[in-house]
């Protein structure tokens, strides 16, 4: 993995703690970093990801905003234009949409529009995905809307080490970065891991080979990686070697790493929690086909949620959201094609 380490000491951290740590490090290093959003100050956010930051860095650096996503993102454009580096939080991914005009019309276009005079160095963090048993509209996965909007980067980490390193890169990056945090992985004990203390970064746009294999390439990101690993474990016991790619960022998309893997396996599965139609899986599939057509030995499979809103019928959603056994079924299918 490409990385710059300041120290080599490590701590065992959850995803949640690693993200907090990244913000803490950057608040220390860069006085232009400010954090705001709904409930991020005193409470530390509904998922407590900013916990302790206001107390440590002060109310001028970490504060509650009025309840308005368009206000949060729109002011981050303005504050960014005059030299601040806002790292804002939205309460849930689906609640990005009241801000979508600011995103589509401005975040995406502001630098282009000013011919480079103004950059948009903001980071927008938010929890995403289902499986939480929460209310309606708390389970969206809106990455495709962003990926179709030029000029915006999209990071979607799957583990504590990546989360911290990618968030530090995102904060340092002069482009706007939307940072997806899978709720069910925030404190998933299975993915706690050793994370360096202090500063390090992971470049945006470099995928991670999570597992090497020769039979089929499975591409995923974020909270889906664990389901993919589980499916691959099951396949392994049947003698099937899956190569697993964790994209880490959707924009930039590391098509190079994908193509290298496809050259090896010839078979591809793409997994995401977002709905299927016009999801990012379609783009990845299209690029693979464009660039590795003759290497493909079977149709690319997409394992995604059904084309409905994330249902509020929480006891049923496991029929729709990609589970390990759905992925396992897809492995069977592409290998028998």
């Amino acid at each position: 993995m490409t990385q710059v380490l300041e120290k080599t000491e490590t701590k065992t951290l959850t995803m949640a703690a690693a993200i907090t740590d990244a913000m803490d490090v950057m608040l220390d290093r860069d006085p232009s970093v400010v954090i705001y959003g709904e409930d991020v100050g005193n409470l530390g956010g509904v998922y407590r990801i900013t916990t302790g930051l206001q107390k440590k860095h002060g109310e001028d650096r970490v504060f509650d905003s009025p309840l308005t996503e368009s206000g949060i993102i729109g002011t981050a454009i303005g504050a960014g234009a005059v030299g601040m580096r806002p790292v804002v939080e939205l309460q849930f991914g689906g609640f990005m949409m009241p801000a979508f005009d600011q995103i589509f019309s401005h975040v995406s276009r502001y630098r282009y529009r000013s011919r480079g005079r103004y950059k948009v160095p903001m980071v927008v963090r938010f929890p995403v995905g289902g499986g939480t048993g929460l209310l309606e509209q708390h389970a969206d996965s809106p990455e495709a809307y962003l990926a179709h909007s030029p000029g915006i980067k999209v990071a979607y980490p799957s583990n504590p080490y990546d989360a911290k390193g990618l968030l530090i890169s995102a904060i340092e990056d002069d482009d706007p970065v939307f940072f997806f945090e899978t709720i069910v992985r925030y404190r998933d004990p299975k993915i706690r891991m050793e994370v360096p203390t202090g500063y390090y970064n992971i470049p945006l746009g470099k995928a991670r080979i999570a597992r090497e294999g020769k039979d089929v390439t499975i591409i995923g990101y974020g909270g889906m990686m664990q389901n993919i690993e589980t499916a691959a474990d099951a396949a392994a016991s049947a003698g099937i070697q899956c190569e697993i790619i964790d994209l880490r960022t959707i924009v930039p998309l590391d098509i190079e790493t994908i193509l290298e893997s496809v050259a090896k396996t010839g078979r591809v599965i793409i997994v995401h929690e977002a709905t299927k139609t016009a999801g990012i899986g379609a783009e990845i599939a299209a690029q693979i086909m464009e660039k590795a057509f003759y290497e493909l030995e079977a149709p690319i499979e997409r394992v995604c949620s059904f084309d409905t809103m994330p249902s509020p019928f929480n006891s049923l959603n496991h029929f729709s959201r990609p589970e390990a056994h759905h992925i396992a079924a897809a492995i069977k299918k592409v290998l028998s094609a």
Partner: protein
Amino acid sequence: MATSRRTTKKGAADTANHAVFAGSMPVTSELTPFQILAPDGTPVREDLIPDLDLVEEMYRQMARLRHLDDKFMTLYKSQKLGNYAQFGGQEASQIGSAMALDQNLDFLCPMYRNTAAMITHGWSLKNAIMYWRGHPEGWRIPDDLNILPVIISIPGQIVHAAGVAMGLQMKKTGGVAMTYIGEGGTSQGDFHIGVNFASARNAPAVFIIENNGWAISVPRKVQSGVDYLMRRSEGYGIPGYLVDGNDILAVHTVAKKAVQDARDGKGPSLIEQMTYRIRPHTTGDDPKAYRDENGDPKFWAENRDPIQRVKRFLTTEKRWNDDREVAMMAEIETEFQAALEAADNFAAPDPKALLEYVFVNPPVQILEQQAILAERIKEVNA
């Protein structure tokens, strides 16, 4: 709560402005919430006390729904209900206003905390339970109820209500749309858009801000520099009212006036009902993380309870006594248990619900996914 920089900040500036600029806004007067009953149950406006049968009806409904709210917390704790947004403490605010509606003519456009208003407008306890269980049957809105879907994304319902009001106006039904929003939600664009759209179209809508002091952990003052949010009525050219939201008589009286004005073609109104969120934000929230539960929450629970206020009044009026209380609570408990039983006995959710009602005429892509779903259901059942 509702602390304002207004007096400190604006006072001086305004006086200075006034000396200089003819066109600046005049200094507006201080406002105090409208009240009919004092917190101890004594009338402050004897002239406005309604028929005691109505007061008793209000009392009974508040007691019934407080019981429900408490039961829902219990159900949640024993994992028999999903995450639920409690209204406890806001009974006067929701019931007093919803009782101003005509269930046959008027539409209620609720948000997530409006279970009390919805039940008052006709929703059944059983459906409420099933809704908060995430059961498809609870999500189905019966055809004979004029209630719109519960809105979670803050505050879409404000614009829908303006649209319902426009629709009723076009159809000349005489109906009115009533909708609610938390004080936090007033910082959103759609709050402004919906109220202003209704103002521009003179549509029969009643917009109620339930100011319960908190937007999750964020206190009221973070939302805006203004002291009272109903001052925004000024900027829409519509009537605005500030009401003691824990005084059901005051709430009801103002809501009735606003509903009647709307029905009479006088356009929308904006009402701010001052109340307090004595409960956690939802059953999943722990307010100790951001506020002193022995401070304001305790004060409001002990001294501003909307139910106790009316009970004291009715007791003084000799309309209420312990025997009646005991009998009422027994009825309430019986009713709730019957609803719970009905909900418990309902068939488990059918996974097919996941792909129903996406389109009226589903495209082939949905049909394919329905086939996949059927496969998956078969596997599980196998």
